[in-house]
C-alpha cells in the first residue's frame, strides 16, 4: 500500500511543503523540497518523527517542577508518556539536569529536571 504524506519543513522560515510517498514502510519518493537539510528532515519526519517532551511534574509540598526528556522520543508516544507521568511526585531538592524518571515509556530515554527546587 502506498501512502502520501505532506511534511511542512521547519529547517528554515520558508516552510516548504514536502511530499513524501511511502510504500511498505519505505520511502519511494520525496518531492518539493528545496535543500538537502529539508530532504533529511522530511525523511526523519516520515520514518521516525521525534519530539522532546516538555512538561511539569508535581512537587511534594508545593508547586511544580519543569522537566523534559533528555533526547527526543517518538512523537506517537508523547501522550502515553504524559499518562505515565500523571501521578509522579518529585521530592526536593532537585536541580537542573537531575534525572527525575528513567526510561520514559520504555524508550530508554530519561526525564531530566529543567528547574531547581530546594
Amino acid at each position, binding site marked *: 500500500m502506498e501512502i502520501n504524506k505532506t511534511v*511542512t519543513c*521547519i529547517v*528554515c*522560515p*520558508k*516552510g516548504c511543503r514536502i511530499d513524501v510517498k511511502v510504500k511498505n514502510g519505505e520511502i519511494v519518493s520525496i*518531492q*518539493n*523540497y*528545496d535543500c538537502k537539510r529539508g530532504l533529511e528532515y522530511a525523511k526523519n519526519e516520515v520514518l521516525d518523527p521525534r*519530539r*522532546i*517532551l*516538555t*512538561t*511539569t511534574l*508535581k512537587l511534594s509540598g508545593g*508547586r*511544580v517542577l*519543569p522537566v*523534559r526528556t533528555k533526547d527526543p522520543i517518538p*512523537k506517537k508516544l*508523547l*501522550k502515553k508518556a*504524559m499518562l505515565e507521568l500523571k501521578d509522579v511526585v518529585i521530592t526536593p531538592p532537585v536541580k*537542573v539536569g537531575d534525572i527525575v524518571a528513567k526510561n520514559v515509556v520504555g524508550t530508554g530515554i530519561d526525564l531530566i529536571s*529543567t*528547574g*531547581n527546587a530546594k
Partner: protein
Amino acid sequence: MINKELVVIGGGPAGLAAAIEAKKHGVKDILLVERDSGLGGILQQCIHNGFGLHVFKEELTGPEYADRFIKELEDMGIEVLLDTMVIELTKDKRIIAVSHKKGLMQIQAEAVILTMGCRERTRGAINIPGFRPAGIFTAGTAQRFVNIEGYMPGKEIVILGSGDIGLIMARRFTLEGAKVKCVAEIMPYSNGLTRNVVQCLEDYDIPLLLSHTVVNIDGRDRVEGVTIAQVDEDFKPISSTEKYVTCDTLLLSVGLIPENELSKMADIKMDDITAGPVVNHRMETTVPGIFACGNVVHVHDLVDFVTMESQLAGRGAANYLKNRMPLGKHISILPGEGIRYAVPQLIDPQNIINEKQNFFMRSTKPMEKARLFIESDKDLIRTKVIQHIKPSEMINIELKKEELADKDINSLRFFLQEEGVADGNQ
C-alpha cells in the same frame, strides 16, 4: 541614598546578560533589581524547548537557558535584589525601589540598563465585543497558571491570535488533556514561527484559521462559547461566515507591548513603531548613561537575539562608565519601504563596538524573495537578497565598521524590494 555604578532594572534574559557582560568589561559595582521572587523572568514559565540554538548551539528549555545565566551571575558575585519593584526613575538616574525586606530605597546610579521586558496585549486593546465572564486569559497568564502554579485555567479552548505563546500553549494544553478547538488569526498569515505552527498545531491536528477573528464572547459567569468569523481585506468580519464554537476558555495571543513606564518617567525618547526607547549603536537611550535592551526596546521572537543585544548594552554601559567622553556625531537609521522598523535607530559610526554593527528589523508583510537595500544619504552601501521574509521573523543584518565609517554620511536607510521568485528545483 545608596550609590551604585550600574543598576540593571529587570532580571529576565536581558537583564542577566547585560549585567554579566558589564561585569566582564570591568564594571565592579553592579546591582540587579528584580520584581519577582526569582531570576529568569518569563523564561521560567517557558518550559518548552527551542532556546539557545544561536547562543549555545544546543536546544534548551526556558528555565535551562535562564539557569546558565543565573549561575554565571551568581558566580561573578553580582548583587541582586529580588521581590523589589522600581517605582520611579529620573533622568538623573535616581531610582526609587520598594521591597518588603528593605523597604523604600533611593539609589543613585551612574549608569542604568533598562530590561523590563514587555506585557501582553489584552482584550480591551483589540475590542472584542460580548460579556466579561471568567475564562478569558492572555496566553502568558495561562502559561503561568499551568507551568508555575500547576493549575489548568480551561478545558475546552479557543485561541485568538497565532503569536508564539499562543501556539506553545495550544500544545501544552493538548498534552495536558484539554481540547484546543482552533486558533483564529486575523492576518492572512501566521504570526508565529513556522516551527511552532508545525510542532504545536499540525502535530495535534489543531486547525489554524487564517483571516478569522472572534466577533463575540458568550457566557455570563464563565465563557460558554465564542463566535468566529472570517474577515475581508480590511479586517472587517464577514457576517455570513459567523460560526459559534463552544468552549470554556478564550486565550489571547495578540501581541506584546514593551513595558516602558519607567523609560517615560525618565524622559527617554520613544519610537512610536516599536513602542520602545530610541537607542544607539551601544543600546544607549537618548538620556546619556541610561541603556535599554531586550523586549523593552522591541519585541523579539528569539531569546538568543535578546541575549546578544543585551551583551551589547552591557558592554556599552561599561564603555560609558570607563570613558565619559561624549560620543561623536550620530546618524539616523531610517526604515524605508517594506521595513516596519529598524533597531538601533541611531548610530555613531566612529564608535561602533567590536568593529561591527547588527541591525534588527521587521518587514511590513511576508515576501517570498526580496532584495534588502542599505543606502546612506550619499550612496548605496550594499544589497542583500533575502528569502522567505515574514513579519514574525526578525531580519538581522551585520554591517562592518568600514562600511559605515570614514564617510561623511548623515543617515542610513533600509528598504526591501520584492523580486520574482526563482524557479525551484522541483
